[in-house]
């Protein structure tokens, strides 16, 4: 992690402050010349400040903090975590893309805030990462199929559908996973940092089936190319071996070959044609879209190639037809709770605890979580009430 922490001393050294200023400037997308002009010094002076060769004056720090959209306290606080995963994502993009840049910054900010609050409260997130499976020479699809099944077995999932990928990542693996509304073209992001661990951001605006696909896709990167940041967008062409692996892993994990074959055999027994009804029942059983189901059947040679295209040219498979087969099912709201609120639930709980214990002030938390005062009060509201609800019966045993 590009973190500047020194727990043993009360104040940071000039070099540590300089490094934090550099990261904050880069985060604000300002050049050294821009920053020097804002402060009224020559560029070489700013370089010396960032290198820790010249101590920044308080008035300069104030101006820089304002220009970098942060505060002097956020730059000087000893425990502040200065994580910058954004450049790792920038390297992936052929051209700069604002939607991806915003999503990468959001992931970075969420992780940074959570790690800082964990440090402040002395808590840590336990990791239960599966073994890494680097991509080897040879048939990529076969490797993905094998690795996906191995992970399913390791997780004890059995042949059933993946109903809540967020809980699997969060609770079973200990991955930092956030579901937030993102630009429609961004499906998910994955990054790994030595200190923060594996981090995934998924688009809350996507339907549950797609969110599951994106979550498993990012899990594939976590399994195979853990050290490489990854962003999944809708125009992904899956050209690289890594992407082809992740795509195949995603299909194999969500719709395992053996389970699909078995289910397919059961529901088509004694029948001569593959119908819409079969597709609807299979897609529902595995919690995937109708298209994803048909394409998987094509891949497993359970349906002829071009079957989905045939359905499309013959009127597709409509929601009405799904309703006729399955009846009125309640909308699946898995993950919805994680997407609501100004910050993810665990982060909100950490913030409330840090405020209750007077480790952070309202202003410090607002800055850390990038909220205004109204928003942070919404998060903190009721924290005092919880305190007055304290009862020995509900005391946590630690």
């Amino acid at each position, binding site marked *: 992690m590009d973190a500047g922490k020194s727990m043993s001393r009360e104040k940071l050294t000039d070099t540590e402050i300089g490094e934090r200023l550099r990261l904050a400037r880069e985060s604000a997308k300002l050049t050294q010349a821009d920053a020097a002009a804002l402060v009224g010094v020559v560029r070489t002076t700013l370089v010396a400040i960032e290198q820790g060769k010249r101590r920044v004056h*308080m008035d300069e720090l104030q101006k820089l903090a304002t220009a970098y959209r942060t505060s002097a306290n956020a730059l000087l*606080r000893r425990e502040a975590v200065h994580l910058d995963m954004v450049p790792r994502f920038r390297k992936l993009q052929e051209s700069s893309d604002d939607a991806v840049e915003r999503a990468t910054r959001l992931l970075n900010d969420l992780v940074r805030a959570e790690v800082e609050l964990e440090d402040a409260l002395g808590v840590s997130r336990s990791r239960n990462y599966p073994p890494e499976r680097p991509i080897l020479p040879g048939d990529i699809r076969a490797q993905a199929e094998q690795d996906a099944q191995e992970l399913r077995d390791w997780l004890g999932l059995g042949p059933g559908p993946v109903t809540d990928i967020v809980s699997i990542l969060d609770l079973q693996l200990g991955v930092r996973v956030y579901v937030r509304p993102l630009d429609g073209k961004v499906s998910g992001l994955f990054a790994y940092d030595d200190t923060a661990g594996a981090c995934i951001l998924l688009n809350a605006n996507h339907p549950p089936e797609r969110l599951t696909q994106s979550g498993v896709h990012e899990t594939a990167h976590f399994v195979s190319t853990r050290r490489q940041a990854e962003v999944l967008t809708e125009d992904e062409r899956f050209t690289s071996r890594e992407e082809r692996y992740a795509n195949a892993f995603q299909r194999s994990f969500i719709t395992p070959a053996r389970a699909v074959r078995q289910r397919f055999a059961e529901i088509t027994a004694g029948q001569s044609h593959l119908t819409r009804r079969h597709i609807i029942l299979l897609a529902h059983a595995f919690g995937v879209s109708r298209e994803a189901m048909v394409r998987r059947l094509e891949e497993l040679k359970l349906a002829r190639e071009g079957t989905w295209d045939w359905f499309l040219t013959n009127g597709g498979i409509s929601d009405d037809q799904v309703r006729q087969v399955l009846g009125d099912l309640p909308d699946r709201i898995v993950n919805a709770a994680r997407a609501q609120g100004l910050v993810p639930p665990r982060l909100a709980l950490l913030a409330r605890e840090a405020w209750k214990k007077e480790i952070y002030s*309202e*202003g410090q938390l607002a800055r850390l979580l990038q909220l*205004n005062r109204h928003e942070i009060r919404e998060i903190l*509201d009721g924290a005092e009430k919880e305190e007055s609800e304290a009862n020995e019966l509900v005391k946590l045993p630690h």
Partner: protein
Amino acid sequence: MSSSSFLTNPRASLIADASVVINLNATARAAEIIKAVSNLFIVTENACAELEAGIRNGHRDHAQLLELIDAGLVRRASLGNAVMIVYESLIDGSTSRTLDDGEAATIAHAQEIGGVALIDERKARTLCSASFPHLQIASTVELLMHDAVAGAIGADGQVDALMNALTNARMRVPAEHVGKLTAIIGAKRAASCSSLPKHVREADAAPQK
């Protein structure tokens, strides 16, 4: 400190933190409330910058503050060089012993000019009392409950102002003022305010004897 005693010296300036400005704006009667007290009202540049940075979700706190400044009701102040060391001590160090820029500047400026720091934040008040025991601290609710405010906007106006601050801005109320506040706005209204302690919120539901 009694709830009305902080305004005994009309020459003492009141240095308001960003959170106090937000509460005052939420009352919808900020100008009248400020006019009601003869003390000079000050907001530091840092607190202004914080409100400016927090413009989102339709809140107009920064614009409303500028209107109060333009009307001559609030003065904007920068920290002097002499007090920079105090300010630095409040922002530089471990998280638990520091504050964000606006909160720190409010305390530092109050210390610099011998004014009253108007600040609601629990941790800021605790740190301030420990580091500057002679510095006078007061909160929004004390200002709003003051007799001068009731005199200017009337008893009903005072109740409305308090309720607006509590419901629109989730105003924090230091424990020592909860009793008087409840007496002014009434137990039923107090029970509806989510930012007040649970015992206040449940008092209305308690069986009548």
